[in-house]
Each structure stands twice: as structure tokens, then as C-alpha cells.
């Protein structure tokens, strides 16, 4: 039964990674850049929920909605101010800027909210599910997390396939210049991508903090980097890839922590990243990119 519990916890953590990984994968697919600050948007979202719930005493649903709105706006602002002017710059410049934004959010939060750890109370207050005569308990957070992840995946897939904006995203990720010539508003599409990714980050943040209820300005960076690992694992640019990569990584992390070493669990996750990039740099579902000579 222990193993089953670990597995379920792994899937739950993996679902969070999958939602965060979506943000990386969509932005990478469309803007061809690693949005290093994505993990820190999560942290900002968590602080919003925390402050609204504990400070204002508002209903969790209101807090979450507010957090989604603020993160979405933050994502759009980051793109407009920091990334958009660099669209024709070298990748090195863009990457350094993204690191700068990440660092800015972390240290801004440090000044605004302080360095002390806030204990985050779960927004999900349903009773836990008991199975097999009470031997197996699944917390409501776990159930909600997995359900939310599934809903988001389905909704996003439908959005990309069925709506005009979604198809514009596909077109821009294939060929920015050609899409522009075909009348796609590239700037608006990129903004939309950042908006969706950041909104999802807010949801992921709430779920993450509900499961691991400690909040500091650095809360976002580790799950962020791990979710990027998940995105690479699944194949960057692919929505189902983010799901598969996220779930697998979550399971690996929890099992590694349980059976190998709790202190080495991060090292194990990063080792996975390195191995994946060595063996199959394009990930499980990724496409190969040819360089034109």
C-alpha cells in the first residue's frame, strides 16, 4: 500500500509540474525562448492567494480568481517590457534578460513580503477519500489537483485545435514570418500565449502550495526548473508531452525521495534532465529541428 500511496502522490505532484510545464512549452514553442521567470510568476500567484485569504478573509475561489487575473497581467507585462524588444536579439541576450526578470520577481517579493516563511493554508477543504477499508487515503488536494490538470489539458487542446486564436498560435510556432504574411497578428498571439501560460501558473501555484504549504520568495524557482525539466522530458513545444513529462517526473521525484534519499531527490530529478537531453534531446514527443545551411 505504501508504494501505491507514493505513486498517487507522484501523480499529484506530476500534475502540478504538468500545468507549469504547459507555460514553458507554449512559450518555448511560440517565442522560441526559455521563460526563466515562469516559476516566479507561480510564487507571485501564491502570495496573492495567501494575502487575499488571510488578510482580507475572502473566499478561496475569489482569491484564486484574483490570483489568475494578476498573474495573467503580470505575464503580459513581462513580455511587453522585457522580451518583446529583444525579439530579434541573440538568444544569449534573451536568456540573460529572462534570468534577470526571474531574479527581479524573487527579490521584489523578498522586499515586499519579507523573507520569512508563510504557512499557506490549503484552499481545498474537502474530506479525504478513504479506500480499501481505510488503508489507502487520498487527500482531497490530490484528487482536485489531478482533476484540474486533466480539465486544463482537455480545454487547452480543444482551444488550440478549434479556435481561431489557437490555430494562430500553431501557425506562429511553425513560422513566425509566414504567419505574419498570412494575416496573423503575431504580437497579439505571443501576448496571448504568455497570458495563458501565466494564468495556468497561478493555478499550478495554488495547487502546489496546497500540497506543500510553505511559501517564500523562492518557492517558485525549484518547481519552475523541475517543470521545465518535465517539458523537456516530454518534448518541448508539445502539450501532451508536458502532461506525460510532468507525471513521469513527479513519480520519479516521489519514488526517489521515498526509496533512494530524501536529500538527493532534487539531484535525481536533475540527473533525469541530463540523461534525457543526452539520450533524446527532443524529448518523448518532441520534433527534430533542422538547421538551414
Amino acid at each position: 500500500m505504501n508504494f501505491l500511496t507514493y505513486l498517487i502522490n507522484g501523480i499529484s505532484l506530476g500534475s502540478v509540474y504538468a500545468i507549469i510545464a504547459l507555460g514553458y512549452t507554449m512559450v518555448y514553442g511560440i517565442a522560441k525562448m526559455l521563460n526563466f521567470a515562469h516559476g516566479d510568476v507561480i510564487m507571485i500567484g501564491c502570495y496573492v492567494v495567501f494575502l487575499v485569504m488571510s488578510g482580507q478573509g475572502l473566499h478561496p475561489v475569489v482569491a484564486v480568481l484574483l490570483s489568475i487575473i494578476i498573474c495573467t497581467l503580470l505575464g503580459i507585462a513581462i513580455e511587453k517590457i522585457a522580451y518583446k524588444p529583444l525579439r530579434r536579439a541573440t538568444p544569449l541576450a534573451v536568456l540573460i534578460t529572462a534570468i534577470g526578470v526571474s531574479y527581479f520577481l524573487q527579490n521584489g517579493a523578498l522586499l515586499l513580503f519579507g523573507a520569512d516563511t508563510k504557512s499557506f493554508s490549503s484552499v481545498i477543504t474537502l474530506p479525504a477519500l478513504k479506500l480499501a477499508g481505510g488503508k489507502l487515503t487520498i487527500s482531497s488536494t490530490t484528487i482536485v489537483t489531478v482533476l484540474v490538470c486533466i480539465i486544463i489539458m482537455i480545454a487547452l487542446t480543444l482551444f488550440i485545435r478549434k479556435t481561431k486564436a489557437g490555430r494562430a498560435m500553431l501557425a506562429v510556432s511553425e513560422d513566425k514570418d509566414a504567419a505574419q504574411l498570412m494575416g496573423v497578428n503575431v504580437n497579439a498571439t505571443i501576448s496571448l500565449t504568455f497570458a495563458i501560460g501565466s494564468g495556468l501558473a497561478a493555478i499550478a501555484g495554488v495547487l502546489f502550495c496546497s500540497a506543500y504549504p510553505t511559501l517564500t520568495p523562492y518557492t517558485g524557482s525549484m518547481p519552475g526548473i523541475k517543470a521545465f525539466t518535465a517539458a523537456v522530458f516530454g518534448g518541448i513545444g508539445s502539450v501532451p508531452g508536458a502532461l506525460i513529462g510532468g507525471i513521469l517526473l513527479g513519480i520519479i521525484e516521489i519514488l526517489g525521495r521515498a526509496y533512494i534519499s530524501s536529500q538527493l531527490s532534487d539531484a535525481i530529478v536533475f540527473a533525469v534532465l541530463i540523461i534525457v537531453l543526452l539520450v533524446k534531446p527532443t524529448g518523448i514527443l518532441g520534433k527534430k529541428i533542422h538547421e538551414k545551411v
Partner: protein
Amino acid sequence: MAKTTKKLIKKSTGNQLITCGMVAAVYIAVQIMIAAGAMSSLMQGLLVPMCTYSIVAIGLNLCVGYLGELSIGHAGFMCVGAFSGAFCTKLLAGTISNSVLLFVLALLVGTAMAALFGFLVGIPVLRLRGDYLAIVTLAFGEIIKNIINVLYIAKDTDGFHFAISDGNSIRLSEEGVWLINGAKGITKIPHLSSFTAGVILILLFLLVVFNLVHSRSGRAIMAIRDNRIAAESVGINITKFKLMAFTISAAIAGAGGVLYAHNLSTVTATPANFGYNMSIMILVFVVLGGIGSFRGSIIAAVLLTLLPEVLRGLSDYRMLIYSIVLIAVMLFNWAPKCIEFRQKVMARLKKSSGKGEA
């Protein structure tokens, strides 16, 4: 009009002399200030860290500026250098009494170990490009830190004892000593670092990187950065030269780590010492000083270390300022509007100087 295209390249040798002279001048000035009692002990305490940051920034600049690859795991190589160097010192402190020899040995060991790790990490990492490479160097830095935190090595009359994760499993006899004690790190390291040693190392590594980038191998490294496909087409072995630059860069960071460790009595693999923040801080020095300019790296390292200490009120905002510096420098260099603005200013300056000549 012809003048704008006639942008001549500065001669390198003069450049090198200026930088070395600058370092030497600062060294002499500091020595005079110390002798005259004009330097607070707080400032004196900053001298070795300043040298450390300069050295690591020189190493990282080789990687970012000349190899053209972003590493955000250089703190990891510093960490390797710091721990292997301090380990060596602890091991030999009983047998070698000459502190200069002891420190030189620690430097050699630390640098060599960092080079080895740079080489081993470089083999897989350098096959990747851009963003992937950056994130893997970050991952590597975290792994190193993680592993050192669960590593226990001790020595007593029975010889060496090793353990991973569980330090309590080691039963030491009475005269036994801990060499690496897990998350507690290495303790009671002899204070072997000095400002003089730091400056000598800076000059040494400046010489190494200057000579390297102005040699056949350096040109090959830059050729790969400028155009990989063209470099291949003229017969340059991409893997070999990338690996060479990365290894040398890691080795220099390792030497910085040795200097850093021997300035502290206890070295631990905490995020504050060798974490992501340290890597970013060094990157800020490199970016602000000018990517590709070793002199700039040193100046930025020194100024940005001094600044928060001089303006005490600023220290809370230090990290925030660093992040803004990163973004602002990139936008200034690359945003179309900024480029336009710069060209306008340049044109105006040229016009006025042209009038002056006429």
C-alpha cells in the same frame, strides 16, 4: 561615410598591459592604505571575496563571451574547487608546515578537480545549444551541492571512512578528524588566502585567458561562437575547442573557489555560498562589465562588491538592483529603440567632432 565602415580593431597587447597595470595599481594603493591605517577592517574583509569574484568572473566571461554559451552553474565549479582544495589542505596540514606550499597544492588540486568536472560535464552539455545548455549547467550546480551535503569523509588511525547520507554510521577513534561532515561542510580550514594571493591569481588568469583568446585555439573558439557551420567547414574540431574553453573556464572558477574557501574557516555547500544566486551574481559582473571584456568583469566585480558596503542603505536592494542591471543592459544593447537612440547620439557626437576638425 567611409569612416563609419572603417571601424578598426584595437590592438590586443596594449589592452592586456592596461588591465594588468590597473590591477597592480589597485594592489599597491590598497597596500598603502592598509599600511596608513586608512582602510576599515570591514573593507579589508572584502578584499579576498572581491578577488574571488573577479577570478570566477574572468572564468565565466571566457565561457559566455568567447565560447558564446551561457553557464549558470559556475558556482558549482567554484564549489568543487572550494571543497577539493580545502579537503587537500585539511589532509596535508599535519605534514606540510609551509603555508605557501600548502596553499599552492590546494590550488592545484582544486583547479584540477574543477577542470575535471568541467570536462566531464562539458562532454554531454556542450552537445546541447543555448537554453538547454544553460539549464543543464544550473542542474549540474544543484546536483554538486546536493551530493556534497550528504557526503561524509573522516580519517583516523584506521584510515579513511566514507559515508553517504548517514554520518552517524562512521565510528571514529578518539584522534579521528572529520574531513567533510555532510551539511556541516569542512570546518577549521587554515586561513591561507590573502589579498596578495588573490591579486597574483587574477594576474595569472588574466595572462592565461588573454594569451588563449589571441592564439590559434582562441580564434577557433571564437569562430565556433560566430558561426559554427563555417568553423566546421574550415576544419575546426567543434567538440574539442568547445570542451577546451569550457574546461578552462571551469578550472578558473575552481581556483576562485579555493581562494574563497581558504578565506573562511568553515565552508558549506549552502545556496548562499555556491547556489544559483552566486552564479547569477557572477553573471551580473560579466554582463555589466561587458561580455567579452575581462577588464570590465574585474571592474564590475570590484565596484558591485564595494557599492552595497559603501552605501549601507543599498544592501537590502542589492539583489533587486542586480536584476534590473541584467535587464537594463540587455535592453540597452539589443532593443531596436535603444539601438536607434544610440546611433542618433553617436551621429550627433561625430558631427560635432567633425566640425571641430574642420
